[in-house]
């Protein structure tokens, strides 16, 4: 399971997700992570980035449409080939090492191998000296690094990250980014949501621009940052896109059907 990651594209076909009757993800058809590198889902707050990631991870069911993984036609839950790091790290009430061990046990890794893997994961994230410390006593930044260490230890083909550095100071953020770059170089495909444009510029090879539950643009990072075609994406890059005051910020509405919702 620690071999080179294999391609593991996520394919969405006409996917809808509603909160009660209000649609939050609207008719998305797209394929993510079919190429190597990091795909960043950009968009303002409330665009549906976190929802889209959870749908891609299979921990939320689509209300309509189909999500499939690995190019297969099995629409079932993921098969231990994905890992996700959430915006707020969740750790069990046991030690830092114990938390990684719990995840590896679920992946049926033999005991001896587990011990070694835990060492490597903690080393990579600079947490070696916390191995025997209860995870919930660590600082927020350390807990987030531990969450990433746990995800890395599982050697996923696809890694999903929900704004993993949103609440971190610059040093902790850099540490996380360094680990991410190593994983990307190792062939892990990453799907990450963010509203941090500088971070996206540093890490991303592909960009998905999400606005009000719809994908407005999907292109290579180079293309996107050179100048997106979509006017909403343009104003997002300029920093004057607010999702709740769309009309006030710029004049003609190119895509009126959105306002029905």
């Amino acid at each position: 399971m620690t071999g080179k990651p294999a391609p593991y594209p996520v394919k969405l076909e006409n996917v809808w997700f509603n909160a009660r009757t209000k649609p939050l993800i609207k008719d998305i058809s797209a394929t993510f992570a079919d190429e190597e590198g990091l795909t960043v889902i950009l968009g303002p707050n409330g665009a549906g980035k976190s929802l889209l990631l959870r749908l891609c991870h299979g921990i939320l069911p689509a209300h309509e449409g189909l999500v499939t993984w690995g190019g297969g036609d099995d629409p079932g839950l993921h098969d231990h080939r994905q890992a996700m790091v959430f915006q707020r790290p969740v750790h069990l009430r046991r030690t830092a090492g114990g938390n990684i061990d719990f995840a590896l046990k679920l992946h049926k890794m033999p005991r001896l191998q587990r011990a070694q893997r835990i060492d490597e994961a903690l080393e990579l994230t600079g947490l070696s000296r916390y191995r025997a410390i209860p995870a919930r006593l660590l600082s927020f930044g350390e807990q987030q690094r531990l969450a990433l260490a746990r995800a890395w230890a599982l050697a996923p083909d696809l890694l999903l990250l929900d704004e993993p550095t949103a609440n971190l100071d610059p040093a902790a953020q850099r540490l996380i980014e360094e680990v991410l770059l190593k994983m990307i170089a190792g062939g892990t495909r990453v799907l990450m949501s963010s509203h941090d444009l500088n971070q996206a510029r540093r890490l991303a090879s592909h960009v998905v621009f999400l606005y009000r539950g719809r994908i407005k643009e999907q292109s290579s990072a180079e293309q996107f940052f050179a100048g997106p075609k979509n006017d909403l994406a343009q104003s997002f890059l300029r920093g004057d896109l607010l999702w709740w005051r769309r009309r006030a910020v710029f004049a003609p509405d190119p895509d009126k059907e959105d306002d029905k919702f």
Partner: protein
Amino acid sequence: MNDIWQAMATAVNLLAGLDASLVEIVARSLGVSLTAVVLATLIGLPLGAVLALSRFPGRRVILVIMNALMGLPPVVVGLIVLLMLSRSGPMGALGLLFTPAAMIIAQTILVLPIIVALSSTVIESLWQEYEEQMMSLGAGPWARVLALLWDGRFALMTTVLAGFGRANAEVGAVMIVGGNIDHVTRVMTTAIALEASRGDLALALGLGIVLLLLSLAINAASYSVREFARHRYQA
């Protein structure tokens, strides 16, 4: 006033000298209540986990009923168990009435709702915190339940202690189904009730002191468990 002080002095002497009849009653009390709590925990924890983690019609109704039953009057439980175990009752053939076994059954019924209701609250709030992460890791039902029970162990321990406190202190149920027979079914609370009405205050006071100390010890244990968990795991 003198009588009371004299009784108090005798009570302390009984305690200090580990008076045989006093020790016998205390031991029987603890035996009955501890057995009842162990049984109620073995039945109640899995029930609490199921109520916390599954969704089925009637789940809320059961939870409300369990919460209501936490305040179940012991005498009513005694009465019902008496009817079940009396010779003409459905379980009369077992011949359990007026034995410690009958008292254990009654106390188990009393403690069960406490363990079910409190443990399902503990497990459910922990699950709300863990749900996404567990799903993400691909944890199956068994792995989930075991992790929740283990991580909730301190909070669950305090619910068991709460159950023990209830069993230990109640008098109505054990009086009715046990009969307060000397050397057979006499426990602390029933002995106190009897001796107080007979006017033998020394033994009643001695047992009362033991009961109070036990209750104090249970609460101290509960508090220490919570404090330990908070310091160690920020739980």
